[in-house]
C-alpha cells in the first residue's frame, strides 16, 4: 500500500510495521507494539481530535469507527488494526464544511468544554446505524421487532460516552434533530 511516512518520532526498539487507512489516507508506521490505537492516532499521526479521557475504556472520549463500527480506541492495540479502515472526527468534517451532526451539536449547544465531543459525535452516528441495523439494546422492549429510533434507545446506547460538563440533554436534542426524532 503506498503510504505516507510516520510523523518523525524516533523509532522505538522493537517497533513493528503497521499499515492503517485513516480517514481514507494510507499510513505506514513503525510502531511500538504496546501503543494503543488511540496513542497511535494522537502521538504518531497527530490526529488529536480523538481524545484520551481515561485510557481504560471507561469514558468513550476516544471513540473512533473501525471498519464502520465504533470502538474505544484506547482499549485496542494499534498493531491489531493492520489494514483496517479507521474513521476519526477529522475525517467527518472541517470547520469550514461541517457534517450535519457536528452542526447540530453547535446549534443545540451539545458541549461545553468540548473534550468528549468528538467521541460523542462519532458514537451518535454509529448509534443511529446500529438502531437501523436492528441491533437491540438493554431498553429494547420487544426483541422480535426492530428497535425504535427513540430518545430512550439513544440515551441507553450513548451511555458509554461520559460528559462531565453534563451536556446530555443538549446532545440528545442534537441527535434527535439529525435523526428526525420529534423532541
Amino acid at each position, binding site marked *: 500500500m503506498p503510504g505516507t511516512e510516520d*510523523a518523525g*518520532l524516533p523509532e*522505538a*526498539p*522493537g517497533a513493528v510495521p503497521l499499515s492503517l487507512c485513516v480517514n481514507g489516507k494510507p499510513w505506514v508506521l513503525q510502531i511500538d507494539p*504496546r*501503543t494503543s490505537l488511540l*496513542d497511535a492516532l*494522537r*502521538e504518531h499521526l497527530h490526529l*488529536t*481530535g480523538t*481524545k*484520551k*479521557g*481515561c485510557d*481504560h475504556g*471507561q*469514558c468513550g472520549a476516544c471513540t473512533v469507527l473501525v471498519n464502520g463500527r465504533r470502538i474505544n480506541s484506547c482499549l485496542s492495540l494499534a498493531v491489531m488494526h493492520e489494514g483496517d479502515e479507521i474513521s*476519526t*472526527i*477529522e475525517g*467527518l*468534517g*472541517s*470547520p*469550514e464544511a*461541517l457534517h450535519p451532526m*457536528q452542526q447540530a*451539536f*453547535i*446549534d443545540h*449547544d451539545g*458541549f*461545553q*468544554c*468540548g*473534550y*468528549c*465531543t*468528538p467521541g460523542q459525535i462519532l458514537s451518535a452516528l454509529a448509534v443511529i446505524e446500529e438502531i437501523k441495523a436492528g441491533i437491540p439494546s438493554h*431498553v429494547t422492549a420487544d426483541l422480535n421487532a426492530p428497535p425504535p429510533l427513540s*430518545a430512550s434507545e*439513544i*440515551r*441507553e446506547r*450513548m*451511555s*458509554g*460516552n*461520559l460528559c*462531565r*460538563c*453534563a*451536556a*446530555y*440533554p*443538549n446532545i*440528545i436534542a442534537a441527535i434527535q434533530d439529525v435523526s428526525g426524532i420529534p*423532541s
Partner: protein
Amino acid sequence: MIGEGLSRTDGPLKVSGRARYSAERREMGEPLHGFILGAAIGKGRVVSIDTSRAEAMPGVQLVLTHLNAPPQAEVIPKSDILDVQPQLTTDVIAHYGAPVAFVVADTFEQARAAAALIDIGYEVVAGEFVLDENSAAPEWHDESRLGDLDAAMAAGAATIDAVYATPYHFSQPMELHACIADWRNGHLTLHIAAQMVAQLADAVADTILIDRSCITVDSSFVGGGFGAKIALHAEAILSALATRQLNRPVQLVLTRRQGFTIAGHRPASISRVRLAATREGQLTGIGHDANIQVSPEGNWKEGVATVARALYAAPNRLTRTRHSELDTGVCEPVRGPGEVPGLMVFESALDELAEKLGIDPLELRIRNDTAIDPEKHRPLSGRRLVECLREGAARFGWDQRPKTPASRRDGRWLIGYGVGSSIRGHYQTTAEARVRLDPDGQVIVQTDMTDIGTGTYTIAAQVAAAALGVPVGQVRVELARSNLPRGNGAGGSWGSGNTSVAIDRACQALREKLGRVAGTGYNDLFAEVRRHFPTGIEAVGSTRGMDDEPSYENFSIFTYGATFTEVGVDIMTGETRIRRMLGVFSAGRILNAKTARSQLLGGMIWGISAALHEAAHVDPRNGAWVNGDFAEYLVPTHADVPQIEAIALDDFDGAANHLGSKGIGELGSGGTAGSVANAVYNATGVRVRDFPITISKLLPGLPKI
C-alpha cells in the same frame, strides 16, 4: 446583543477535533514523555530507591526522585492551592499515590514501562484515614452565632435534630491533567490544562526558583475544570524541571487514577442540622454543625455549615465547623464548594421539618424568606428566591405532588416530588482586559481569562460587540495566556462577571479616546480609527475587587434558584430514576441565553450526581481510593438524565456590577441535590441521611410489594 443565545464561537473547532488542548500542542516540536510513579503506601517515608533498572530501559532520558530532584522552594505545610508545590524534595509520603519518582523517555510507552521497574522500599507509619464522629478535633472554627439556638430548640413547636453524611467528591474533568513544558533560551512555556493562568505562572516560578518574567502559561483550550485545574499540581512542576534539565519539551499527562491521588478532592463531611419552628412554620432556630476532613498538606476548607447563613430568616442561629485532619490527601475546590454537600443536607432537613409541621415544603420555604441578610444585617440584592420557587412550582405542577410519602404508584415505580432551594455567593475580583481596534476593521479582545467550557470566547465577543456597536463576527477573542492582561481566571463563578466588566470598560475607554478626536456623531467606527489612529488604538479596562467596591459592603450579593424533581423508585429493586426536573434561577443579567442554560443544566446534573451517584471510598487501611476511576466512581451518563429544563428569570443586579450580571457556574447544583433527596423520600417514605442515596440504603425501608 448581550444575552442573545449565540452559538459558541469556538464550536466549529471543537466539533471538528481541531481545537488543540494542552497535550495536543506541537509548535514546540515532538516532546519527550513523562510518567509519574505514585507512592504505594498511605503514610510514611521512602527508605530505599533503586532506579537502575528503569534507567537502563530503552528510550529513558531521565529519572527523578527525591535523591536527585533539582532544588526548589521550601515546602509550605498547610499550603494554599496556588502556593508553591515542590515535588520530590522529601522522602516523606503524606498520602497514597503522592509522587515518589518521575521518568522521562522518548515515548509514553517507554516511560510507563520504566516507571514500573523502579524499586521503592517504604517505612509505613500509622495514618488516620476515616472520618467519623471521633476523628474531629474539639475546636470549633468559622463560628457564627446569633441569639440562643438551644433555647429555640427547647421552645420550638417542631424541631429537627439530625445527622447527615456526605462523601468525598472529585471534579474529574474529561480532559486529564496535562502539561507540555518547553524550556527554550531561558524561557519556560507551559501548555497546561489550567483555570487560572497568571496565578499558576506565579506559583510555578516561585516553586522552581525562576524569575516570573521567564515563564508563560498557555491554556487556550481546557477540557473542563470544575475546580480541579485551579491548584498547582505535579504535572506542571515535574515537566518544568525535566525540560529545563533536558533542554527538550516534556509532555506529562496524568492517568485518570492519578487524577484521584495527585489532584485533590471535596472532603467528606458529617453534619448535624438543628431546626426549630413555630406551629405556623416560622423558623425560630437554624443550626448547622459540620465535621469536615482537612489535610495536613493543604489549607482548603469546605464551607459546608455556612450555606444557610443567608438562605432563610430565623432569630436564633449557630453555624460552625470542626476539622478532622486525615491523611487522605489534599482538599481542593470542587464545583459548588460548600453548596453541594451543605445544601443537599440542609434542604433535606428542611423537608423533614415541613413533614413534621404538616406544611407543604414549598410553602415552608416561602414563609421563611428574608429581604435582609439575617447574619450581616444588610439588604440581600436581587433576592428573588420566592419568585424562583413560585414560578417553578407553577410550571412544574407542584400542586400535583403526592401529599403522603409512598402513596403514588406507576406500575412498579413509586413516584415522588421534591423541591430544593439554591443559594450561591457572588464574588468579584480584580481583572483586566485589553481591547484593540485595528484599522482593517477587527476588534481584538485580550485577557488571561480561560474558557473551560464556560463560553468565555463567545461572551467576551458579545460584550465587546455590544459596547462598540459592531457585529460579533468582527471581534477576535484571545484568552488564557499569562502574558495577556491579568484577571483571576475561571473559578468561583466569577469569571464571566469579572471579564465582562473589564472588557466593557476597555470599550468605553476606546469610545472616549475616539470621541475626543472624532466627536460622537460618526457613523463608521473603523473609518474614524483609520483617519485618526492609522496604526490602530487600544485601551485597557479593569474590574475592581469586591473589597474596593462599596456595593459589596452595602449589600449581600447572592444568586438564587429552586429545583423541582420527580423521581421514580423501583419498588422491586430500589433503583431511583429521575423522571422530570425543572430549575428556575435568578442570577442577574444573563450574558448568553444558550450557554447559560447549558451551564445551569450541567450544574443541576451535578446535583443529581451528588444525590444519587458520586462517592469516592477510602481504603481504611492505607487511605487509597478504592474506586478511583470512571468505572467505579459513578457519574451520570446519558441514561441517567431525561430531558430536563433550566430557566433563568429576566434579571439585572446593579449591586453586582454595572452590567447587572452575576455568576451561574455553581448555582444549579446544591439545591438540586436536595430536591432529588426530597423526591426520593416523597416516593418511598425512606429518609436516607447518608449520601449518595443508593439501592442498598433504600431497599430495607421500601414498602412491601
